[in-house]
């Protein structure tokens, strides 16, 4: 039996699912710590690649200087500078990634929690209608 109230609720639930299947509902399948950890691992790879690209561009720009002074270059301090710049860049982007992942998860969880409550209300409406049909 179709009721207006149940139909309205089903439409709202389907609309939410259609709009948020690829973002909020995908995110809350993880625990919060797992989602943040996954984001930080992705950040590690992306930041490392970006750092390598930037170092490569810097080296290309100063190629003349590097080639002329190759014998005078001190590997130790150079390696230390490279490692420090890498760690600084990774640190900054890790903090940004942690904050954005945490905020995204909290917002998604709030949306899906409301979806769950409406879903439970729909289940209760189905049960009530089934009881009414049994009594009838």
């Amino acid at each position: 039996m179709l009721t207006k109230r149940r139909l309205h609720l089903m439409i709202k639930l389907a609309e939410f699912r259609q709009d948020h299947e690829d973002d909020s509902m995908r995110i809350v399948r993880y625990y919060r710590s797992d989602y943040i950890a996954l984001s930080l691992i992705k950040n590690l790879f992306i930041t490392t690649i970006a750092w390598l690209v930037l170092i490569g561009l810097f080296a290309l720009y100063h190629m003349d200087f590097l080639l002329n002074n190759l014998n005078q270059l001190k590997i130790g301090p150079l390696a230390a500078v490279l490692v420090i710049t890498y760690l600084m860049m990774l640190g900054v982007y890790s903090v940004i990634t942690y904050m954005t992942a945490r905020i995204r998860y909290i917002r998604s969880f709030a949306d899906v929690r409301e979806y769950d409550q409406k879903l439970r209300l729909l289940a209760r409406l189905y049960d009530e209608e089934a009881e009414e049909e049994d009594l009838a």
Partner: protein
Amino acid sequence: MNTLITVRDKMRALYADYSMYIVPVFKFALAMVLFLIINNRMGYMQALSNLFVLIILAAVSAILPLNAMVLIGSMLIVLHCFGLGLEVGAFAMILYLVLVMLYFRFASRDALVLLMGPLACTLNIPAAVPLCLGLMRGPESALSAICSVVSWRFFQLTYAEIAPMKQTSDAGVLEILQEIPRSMFNSSLVLYLIAFAATAIVVSLICRYLTTFTRLTAIIIGSVVFIVIMLAGGRALQTEINTVVVIGGTVVSALIALILNTFFYTVDYAKSKYIQFEDDDYFYYVKAIPKLKTEGTRQEEFFDDDAIDEEPPLTIRPDGTGRIGNEVDFETKLEDSLKDL
């Protein structure tokens, strides 16, 4: 004023009924304009200079999400750069990849500025980008404005300096690769970066925090800030600035920002939705057409919110265990059934 409100309401009604057709048409038009300007200024790869190729790319952009248009436009720029030279194309690809990796993976909504920056600056209305960003987003939009300047400066550099250099001289690969960043990161870029960032921050702060000012005032103040920084900064950094073009372009940019603000940014354009779902008995095909409600009214809720608040929260963990409120405890029921066995 009433005429404007009437026109805006008619636009909302039209969008509510025909959004399925209006949105792709707008995206197609925007994509065609962007791709035509890219081809007009660059055009180094003959295969992409064909109008039919652009029409197909614009049609694909119209049906895919907005970031697909950004991806296709960026690829068009990169491929034209490859047509100019392998090293130029490689630099273009690396530049756009670095911008995505360092910033746009956090702010993917603003990716369109990568193409709107070159478009606005080519049409001599550069202030339109930071003004619109400041109206739509918060102070963090200054970073998006900076990325748009970098994209525009590389786009301009390619056809204004690198292409003539490739055609007139026998510069080697390394020389070109060293010349690109040297020419790109000059005083003109610094001036535009400061002007864009400051304008976006000023406009967004006025819109967000000063309730006594209207958005119109934010646009006016933002435009003045842009003009002052460009003219004063141009003199301080000894950069060639055409005063008439800057002032005229900023006035036009302010008008564009005002029109966009009046008709788009402050209006709730709800569109018709097509939803389908099923239960055990029926398939449901629903078309939801929004009501055009006036500001200040609240749509009546159909279901009982109090009933929802009385229910304890549902907790279903990713591994499938959980409980529905206090009525069913799966773990206890499982233990009881095992005892019976």
